[in-house]
Structures are given as C-alpha cells and as structure tokens.
C-alpha cells in the first residue's frame, strides 16, 4: 500500500485537531500539528510519539510510530493529550519549573524528573473522560514496542495501575498480566495503593499539593533515585523550562503555593509516610545547584552559569541603586553627505530638497539620499574608568556557583559600577597555579560570567602579572580583592618578585591601586606600610565577610562617583 500523500495527511490532521480541541472545549490558535520530520531528529525527539514544543507551541506527532503501535485510531486522544499540556497542565513553563524545583527539594539526587508523569496523569484524566479506550490502546501499543532489554519500571507499572483504577478497568488491562503477581509481592498492597492514590489524588485542590501527594506515593516505587529512569509513550512531550523560568522560581514565583502545599503535606503525614523530608537550604545557589546537577555535559554548565549570573546580578543591584547601564544611545540628528539613492534603500532616506537642488528635473528619477548620524560626544569629553580586578578565589572561600561567595560579589559590584559608568573592566582570577585572565570587557553579562570562575587552591597573588599589566597599561584603577592571605603573600620571604616593590611600581603606573582586604586592620597597615607611603596606593579593610558587598558598593562610589 502506498503512503498517503502529504495533503491527505494534513487534511486528516486538521480534522483530528478540531476533535482534539473539542475534548478540552477550547478553540486554540495553534497551527495544525505536523508529522515528525528531520528537524525532530536533530532535536533528539524523533522517537517520541508526540510532543508539544512549549516554546513555539507546535504539536508534532509521530504517525509512523503510532501505526507501529497499532493505535492509529487513537490520534485524536494523542493530540488532545498534547493540547492538554498547552491549555492546562502545565500551561506555563514557569509552573513546570516550580514543580521541578519542589521535586528536587523533596527527592534529592533524582535522575529523571517525575513531573512529566504527573502532568500526564492530570491531562489523561480529562482526555480519558471521553477517550480512555484510545489512550489504553496507546499504552498497550507502547508495551508491544519495547525492546527485550527495555523493562517497565515499577513506577510505570504503578502509573498504569492508576489508570486501571481511574477508568474502572480490570487489573491487568494495562499492567502486563505476568507482572501483577510479582509486583504485588515486591510491593505489598500495590493494588490498594493505586486505588487509594487515584481516589485521593484527583480530589486534592491545588496543583502543588497534588504534586507533593504524588511524590509521597510514587517514591515508594523508586528503588534508587540517583539511578531512576523510566520509559513512557509520552516521555518527553514538553516540559523544557529555560533559565528564565527557573530564575523566576529562584526569585520566589509560586513560593506561597509551595509553602502551603508542604505545610498541608506535613499535617496530613504525607511526607513521613513516603519517607520524604523537606530540607530547604535558604541559599538560592543551592537550589540552582540541585536544579542543574543532572543536566548533561556543557549544556548543563552554561545553563547553570546563566542562572547563577542572574542571581549575582540581583545581589549586585541591591547594592548599586543607579540608572540602567550606560547612557542612552544619542539620537540620530546629524545630517551626513548626499549619496546616490538605490533601489532597495529605504525611501525614507531620500532628501528631496537636496535631490531637487542637485538634480533639477531628474530628481524624481535619480533621487539622492542623506542619512542622519548620531551626534556622539567627543572622546576627549569622556572619562572612561578602566578597572583591573585581581580576585582571590582560594579554597578559603566557596565556589560562587554553589554558594554565595562575598568576594566574588564584591568584584561583581565593582565591575557593574564601572561598566554602568561607561567604563571597561579586565580581571585576573587567582589562587595557586595558573591565573585566569580576560581581555578588556565592556559588557556587564560577560564580566559577571567571567568573575564567576573559581580555582579553589592556596593563595598565591600574581605579582608577575601585576607588573606586566602595569607596564602595559597606565591610568588604570587596580583593585586587589583578598583576605589576610594576601598579607602573607606580600611577606613571603621566598618570593623573587619583591612584592612590596611591585606594589609600588604598580601604584606609580596606575590611577590608583586599592588593596581591598578582609583582614586585621593594624596588621594590614603594618605589612603594607611601605606601599601605603605611595600617594596612589590605598588600603580598604572589611571587618567581616558579611560586610564585603556593602564595602564594595562604597568603594565603587568613591572610585567612580555616585
């Protein structure tokens, strides 16, 4: 039999799409679903039965797989399922992100998120009111498709038992018959568990409360959270919150709902029954760490860095109450020279007066254009601050991506202050061993990301680099951020670099050098006394680590003006 033409497939999809919309009693403005194609292969979703891309809101369905499952008559239910993710569960990716964060809080180390199964339970309850037979066909077809090596996890068996209870089916209608006995033996009360779960779960008001209850019951079927993976026909059909979604949760979106849900769960004994414990760390960086822990490879690193960067930006902004970065771009008001207008140029650029004066009667045929240019202020009038920051990231301070590192925050505040004044920044991140440096940075986000680097060894101030940069560039503000270890570096008798001489040399060739230290003031003054005699060397002492950020803001005001 020949494959149906693309037009016929599209017509069939349009028809079933309308039926799917009727299931939810909505009319949506989404485009008609499309069959899987090579772009899905590139996204790694070619093997999915169906999914909705919640960024573009396009539903994609794998018709070939549906046919192999023997469930072609279930197309409406499959589309209605995907539509359900769009119209109600989760509807927004921020909600999905909030549940993922809650899940990490309750089940630390969980390898594969349960949120998709959770949303599927909610969606299928609605779709199944009218089309549960079609959904059953999909779940049965899915089991037939499994390879011999692929086993259904106890979680998925429990999930199927829930549908049997929900749709009033005989045990074994979805759970494989040969699994009924062994599962009941491994998990005494399995069937009743599914029954009680079904009868309680759908009656709970509030999606966060439902999710906590769901976790407290499903956790029983997860042997080891760190190894937990499951297969499902709708396994990856949505739910890819991005860094903005997670950031909104870190900032507190849905936190009230989460607190209410956990309070009620504790009152009802759900957490205790499930062996769950709610231990939230107040540091948002710990939350970010747990969100990103199981993300694969480099993508995970970038994702984490984006979230950490947003968090530090908020902390920086708490200390710098200033207008937005830089000054607004000057408006284009300065007329440029007349040029030939060509087809394809904007007609708005035609200078008719100039064209008539220059071309006479031919102005209409060969008009001339004149652009308006912004009137940039003269570079001489500008005073760009240029700052070099030497940031100590030895092991005496935490990794800024996992926990708040106040020295890193201080560097970020200085950076942001400088860049928002139209300046430029470069940095050296040191501990022991190689020093991480960057070229001049003009962009706040890039600078923020650079200063999130961490080494975490001993403390070995790079005097050689300070000398090199001082030789290369004059008229720079140089700030050393460290603790009492810096004093030990200065006094190091084995150093061949003569640290105090290097500091004085740097002061000679800088606008100012500031040693910004969390150290004992008298000891610091004593140690740095020869350098302090130089007019352009300053010592700024922070009494406690908590005061670093505030002191950095004050130092910024002093260096760059309010």
């Amino acid at each position: 039999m020949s494959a149906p033409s693309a037009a016929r497939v599209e017509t069939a999809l349009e028809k079933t799409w309308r039926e799917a919309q009727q299931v939810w009693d909505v009319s949506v403005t989404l485009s008609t679903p499309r069959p899987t194609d090579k772009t899905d292969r590139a996204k790694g979703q070619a093997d999915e039965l169906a999914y909705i891309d919640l960024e573009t809101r396009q539903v994609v369905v794998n018709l070939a797989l549906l046919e192999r499952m023997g469930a072609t008559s279930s197309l409406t239910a499959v589309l209605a399922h995907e539509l359900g993710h769009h119209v109600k569960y989760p509807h927004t990716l921020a909600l999905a992100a909030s549940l993922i964060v809650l899940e990490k809080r309750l089940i630390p180390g969980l390898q594969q998120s349960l949120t998709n199964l959770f949303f599927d339970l909610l969606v299928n309850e609605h779709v199944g009111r009218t089309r549960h037979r079609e959904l059953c066909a999909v779940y049965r077809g899915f089991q037939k498709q499994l390879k011999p090596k692929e086993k259904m996890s106890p979680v998925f068996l429990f999930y199927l038992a829930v549908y049997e209870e929900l749709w009033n089916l005989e045990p074994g209608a979805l759970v494989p018959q040969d699994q009924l006995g062994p599962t009941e033996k491994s998990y005494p009360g399995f069937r009743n568990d599914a029954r009680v779960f079904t009868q309680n779960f759908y009656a709970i008001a509030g999606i966060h409360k439902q999710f906590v209850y769901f976790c407290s019951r499903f956790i029983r079927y997860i042997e080891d959270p760190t190894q937990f993976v499951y297969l499902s026909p709708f396994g990856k059909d949505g739910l890819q919150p991005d860094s903005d979604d997670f950031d909104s949760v870190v900032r507190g979106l849905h936190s009230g709902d989460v607190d209410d849900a956990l309070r009620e769960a504790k009152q009802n004994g759900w957490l205790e029954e499930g062996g769950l414990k709610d231990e939230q760390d107040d540091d948002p960086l710990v939350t970010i760490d747990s969100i990103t822990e199981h993300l694969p490879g480099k993508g995970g690193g970038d994702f984490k860095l984006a979230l950490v960067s947003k968090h530090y930006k908020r902390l920086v902004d708490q200390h710098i109450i200033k207008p937005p970065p830089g000054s607004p771009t000057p408006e284009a008001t300065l007329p440029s020279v007349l040029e030939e207008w060509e087809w394809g140029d904007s007609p708005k650029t035609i200078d008719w007066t100039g064209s008539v004066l220059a071309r006479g009667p031919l102005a209409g045929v060969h008009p001339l254009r004149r652009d308006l240019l912004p009137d940039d202020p003269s570079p001489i009038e500008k005073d760009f601050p240029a700052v070099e920051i030497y940031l100590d990231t030895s092991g005496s301070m935490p990794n800024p991506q996992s926990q708040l590192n106040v020295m890193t925050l201080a560097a970020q505040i200085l950076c942001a202050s400088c860049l928002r004044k139209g300046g430029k920044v470069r940095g050296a991140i040191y501990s022991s061993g190689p020093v991480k440096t960057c070229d001049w940075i003009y962009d706040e986000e890039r600078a923020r990301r650079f200063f999130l680097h961490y080494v975490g060894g001993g403390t070995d101030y790079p005097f050689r680099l300070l000398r090199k940069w001082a030789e290369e560039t004059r008229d720079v503000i140089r700030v050393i951020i460290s603790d009492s270890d810096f004093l030990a570096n200065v006094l190091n008798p084995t150093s061949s670099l003569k640290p105090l001489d290097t500091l004085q040399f740097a002061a000679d060739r800088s606008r100012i050098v500031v040693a910004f230290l969390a150290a004992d003031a008298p000891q610091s003054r004593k140690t740095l006394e020869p350098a302090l005699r130089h007019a352009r060397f300053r010592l700024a002492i922070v009494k406690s680590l908590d005061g670093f950020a505030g002191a950095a803001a004050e130092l910024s005001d002093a260096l760059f003006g309010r």
Partner: protein
Amino acid sequence: MAFDLARIKQQLEAAAIASPYTLELAAAIVSDTFRLGGVVPPQLSGWKALTKKRKERQLAEEQLGMLAHVLVATALREQSIAALLEKPVEPAAALPAFFDAVVPLTAEMIRSNTFRQEEFLRRWIEMLGGSVAGESAKQFAARLQQLDYRRTLAEFDKAEGARKQEAARRAKLLQEARDKEAAARGWRE
C-alpha cells in the same frame, strides 16, 4: 430500573457545590421523593432516629443534606421515583442501611471527590434496588466494591507495615543523596 449515572454526575458538576438545605428541609425533600414514588416516608421520629440519635450524628446530617441537594439538582429524583414506583422499598429498613453504608463519607468528600460522589450515588441506587445503565449486576457490584472507601482503607492499612519499613529505608537513602549533594558543593560557612 437502570439509572443514568453519567447524566446525574454531569448535572451535579454543573450544580452548586454545597447543599443549601437545612436538616428539616432536606428530610422533607427525601420524604417527598418517597411519597411521589408511592411509598410512605419515615415519620418525624424516624428521621430523628436516622440523624440526631445516630452515633455519627453530625455525619448523618451532612449526608442527608447532600442527598437532598443531589435529588433536587439532578435527575436522581425522577429516576428514584420511577424506581420506587417499579419496585417499592421499605424506608424504615432501607434508609438506616443506606446511612450505615456511607458512614465514612463527609459532605466535603462527596462534594470534592468524584469517586466518593459516585460511591454515594451508587449506594443510593443500591438501596432502591436499581442498577446503572450499561452495566450488568456483576459489574455494578464490582464497581461498588472497588469504590468502597472503608474496605479500601482497611486493606490499605494492612500494607502499612511494609510501607513503614520501606519509608525508613527510603528516608536513609534520600538523606545519603542529600549529604552527597552537600559534600559535592564543598565549602560551608
């Protein structure tokens, strides 16, 4: 008499969630249903025995209120009357049995939990000797058994011992995972 349960449930979804009837009014509504079905309803003393004198007095009053609400808001009333006309029941025996069968169900459960609501309706249909359209007597009994909240809870409790042991083991596992994550983060102030 086969009751159209799907229709009744649909009508109930569209109705107000709480019963607006006082205890006396609720008793009058149920009495009227019996009367229209050609059956003499319980006397005032009979209603008192069914509610005020019961051990679960508060619960019985809530349930009576919900029963009256469902009778008025849905087709349950007309179908109940038809069932009574077809096969009369003796309220003095049937009503106490009904209230005994629905003992654990609070008004809140009946309102908010679709399973408890169905159990409540099926118990009423069972009391009238009716059945549900599209279901055999065996299926009707099986579904009622499946929905039996008391039985489910009793069986569920039996497995709680095993669950508690599992929960302790799981709590240990989760604590280990938590510690591992904290250790991976390293430095703590």
